[in-house]
């Protein structure tokens, strides 16, 4: 009984791992059961999980997280070029470099809060993006993008006599289903880490900062290092995602750092539900899935789809739907963005919770006040005869005592 909540977390993680492992089977009926797409789910899922640690827990809205993804990609490609085709050195390099960049950007941006913080992070990301296209061209290869070449030195590989034409992990090629399972394993690990952080004193401190930062000082906490840690951790997650992205497609371009990419991770997180464990992964899956479907449509397909309509009507329908698919996918994304913020600020997880009646809607609906626990966590907490040793019975006794005391004091 004592560790109900811990057990639930472990169950959640195991369940998550099973879903990932069965991904190819589960997602086939909806037409997503192929490795490239599932791999994308996993990689962007890691990105969103990391972003959620910052935004979901502290409420600090960064608009520049794509910079860390981009830097992670560049670092990984350089590792493939200079060190080894193996994924491990690349991941280490990416995570470290993204973490360092996050430390620098966070150190400055976190001196301000609210919108100043958002603007600062946006400005820094744009700065990185601009630099990648200009001064840093020797490192980033500008618009062409950085790619792995056959005759790159790869000192580690040379030393060990290891030869691999493509990025690999301990000899396993990161392509096809192997590629997916490698990314999926990292996703599960990232999810587990996120659970640990959510449940840790560190996570609670971040929630407290979100709830009332002013109070933190009077409670004896120095908020800044906590926020900076959260920022760096989420930057490292982004760097990790960036390295996987580079491993599956060993070409790094600056467009990965653009503000639209930063906006996308925000959207994935809030669509699923910021501050919840599963939300960011759900949001990512949904967005990448629809992106994949919507952007693949073209006019002929639409015409074929609406063939049953009379000619004039069909043309109009094809024209209007054509606005939202194919090239127009970005428009759909923008509309989706607005719709989520307007109608479902708590994201899908809040929607699910509301449907299940697990949580009454918060009085003030906003992202800032969105329920901070997902359905599962909340359920557990409400049922949990807590590990602190107090049982329901005690609670009642206390209530009675309380009432008696009041009566005794009242004149």
């Amino acid at each position, binding site marked *: 009984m004592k560790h109900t909540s811990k057990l639930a977390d472990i169950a959640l993680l195991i369940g998550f791992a099973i879903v990932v492992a069965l991904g190819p089977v589960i997602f086939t009926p909806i037409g997503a059961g192929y490795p490239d797409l599932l791999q994308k789910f996993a990689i962007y899922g890691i990105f969103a999980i990391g972003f959620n640690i910052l935004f979901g827990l502290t*409420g600090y*809205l960064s*608009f520049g997280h794509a910079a860390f993804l981009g830097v992670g990609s560049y670092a990984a490609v350089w590792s493939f070029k200079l060190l080894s085709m193996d994924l491990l050195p690349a991941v280490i390099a990416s995570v470290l470099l993204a973490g360092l960049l996050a430390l620098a950007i966070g150190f*400055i941006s976190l*001196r*301000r*809060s*609210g*919108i*100043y913080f*958002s*603007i*600062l992070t*946006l*400005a*820094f990301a*744009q*700065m990185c993006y*601009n*630099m990648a296209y*200009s*001064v*840093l061209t020797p490192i980033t290869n500008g618009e062409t993008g950085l790619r792995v070449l056959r005759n790159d030195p790869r000192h580690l590989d040379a030393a060990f006599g290891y030869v691999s034409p493509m990025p690999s992990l301990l000899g396993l090629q990161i392509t096809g289903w192997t590629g997916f399972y490698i990314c999926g394993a990292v996703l599960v690990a990232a999810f587990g880490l996120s659970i640990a952080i959510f449940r840790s004193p560190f996570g609670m401190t971040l929630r407290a900062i979100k709830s009332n*930062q002013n109070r933190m000082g009077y409670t004896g906490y120095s908020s800044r290092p906590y926020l900076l840690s959260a920022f760096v951790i989420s930057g490292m997650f982004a760097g990790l995602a960036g390295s996987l992205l580079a491993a599956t497609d060993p070409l790094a371009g600056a467009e990965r750092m653009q*503000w*639209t990419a930063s*906006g996308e991770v*925000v959207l994935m997180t*809030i669509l699923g539900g910021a501050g919840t464990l599963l939300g960011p992964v759900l949001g990512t899956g949904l967005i990448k899935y629809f992106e994949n479907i919507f952007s693949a449509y073209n006019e002929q397909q639409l015409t074929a789809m609406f063939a049953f309509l009379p000619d004039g009507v069909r043309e109009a329908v094809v024209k209007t739907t054509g*606005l939202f698919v194919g*090239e*127009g996918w*970005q*428009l759909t*994304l*923008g*509309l*989706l*963005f*607005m719709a989520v*913020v*307007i109608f479902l*600020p708590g994201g899908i997880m809040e929607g699910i919770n509301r449907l299940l009646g697990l949580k009454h809607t918060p009085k003030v609906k*906003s*992202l*800032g*006040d969105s329920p901070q626990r997902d359905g599962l966590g909340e359920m557990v907490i409400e049922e949990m005869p807590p590990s602190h040793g107090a049982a329901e019975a005690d609670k009642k006794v206390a209530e009675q005592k309380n009432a008696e005391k009041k009566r005794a004091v009242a004149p």
Partner: protein
Amino acid sequence: MDAIILQILNGLDKGGAYALIALGLTLAFGTLGVVNFAHGALFMLGAFCAVVFNKLLTLEIVRVDPTKTTPWGSPLEVKTPYVQAMLGDWGKVFIDYSVPVSIVMAIPVMLLIGIVIERGLIRFFYKRPHADQILVTFGLAIVLQEIVKHFFGANPIAQSAPQIFSGSLQMTEAIVYPYWRIIYLAFSLAVIAAVFAFLQLTTFGMVVRAGMQDRETVGLLGINIERRFTIVFGLAAVVAGVAGVMYTPIVPPDYHMGMDFLVLSFVVVVVGGMGSLPGAVLAGFLLGILQSFASMNEVKALVPGIDQIIIYLVAVVILLVRPRGLLGRKGVMES
């Protein structure tokens, strides 16, 4: 020396654009308390007003001239813009002046767009946290620019300044300054002056300024501050829009020009001081000039790439040394 003057001049017209956008942003912050990430998109819409107007003016009648043939022997098609066909030489002048003339069209259009956005979307977000405001206007910006992309394509559409302004002013031997940039500078100064005059000299402006200082008190006085704020938002949209219209001959507009300007304008607002109109103007020009200095070859040789990042560096320094910005009040929009 000449080079320095030239850079200052070059910075001034860019600074004018920054100042105009930042002015609108600040108006919206200060009055509605709303962080508008779609403000850059309004600038872009203004620029496309000029494009549309030009397209309308240059709609052509195609006639086949039976007396002439092309070198290939087919009958020659003569294309005449309607306006020219109807108004003769005046039509030509009209087309030549399409950019400045399209301001006439842009003002009501932008006012309408601004009011629709405020009434239809923004007003539901007054009480929501800034994060929500940022997100919803960010979504709106994407939507607006994707719509423009759908109709006008992804490539920049060059617009030309009227013939007589297309040359340059030979100020000294080394200083050559395009006329249109002078026009743009004068135009932005005029718009800034008009906005300030409007706020300083009219009762409407007085109420708005009072509302920027202390919204609640003004509300308590029984003044319908909301309706005025709607108009202020429309005004901000107009300012951004006309700034966009006049900018088209300088940089050919494309659908994502708004976002590029938005990020910089936010930096301008932060440097100037959140909620301070004079701060926005001052910082706009200051950063415009700094940026143009940073793009001098001598400076770039010294610090490569400085032109790309100077504005952000300045913003960082300002925020570290004087967090409230150059002319800002303390604690505005802090949480």
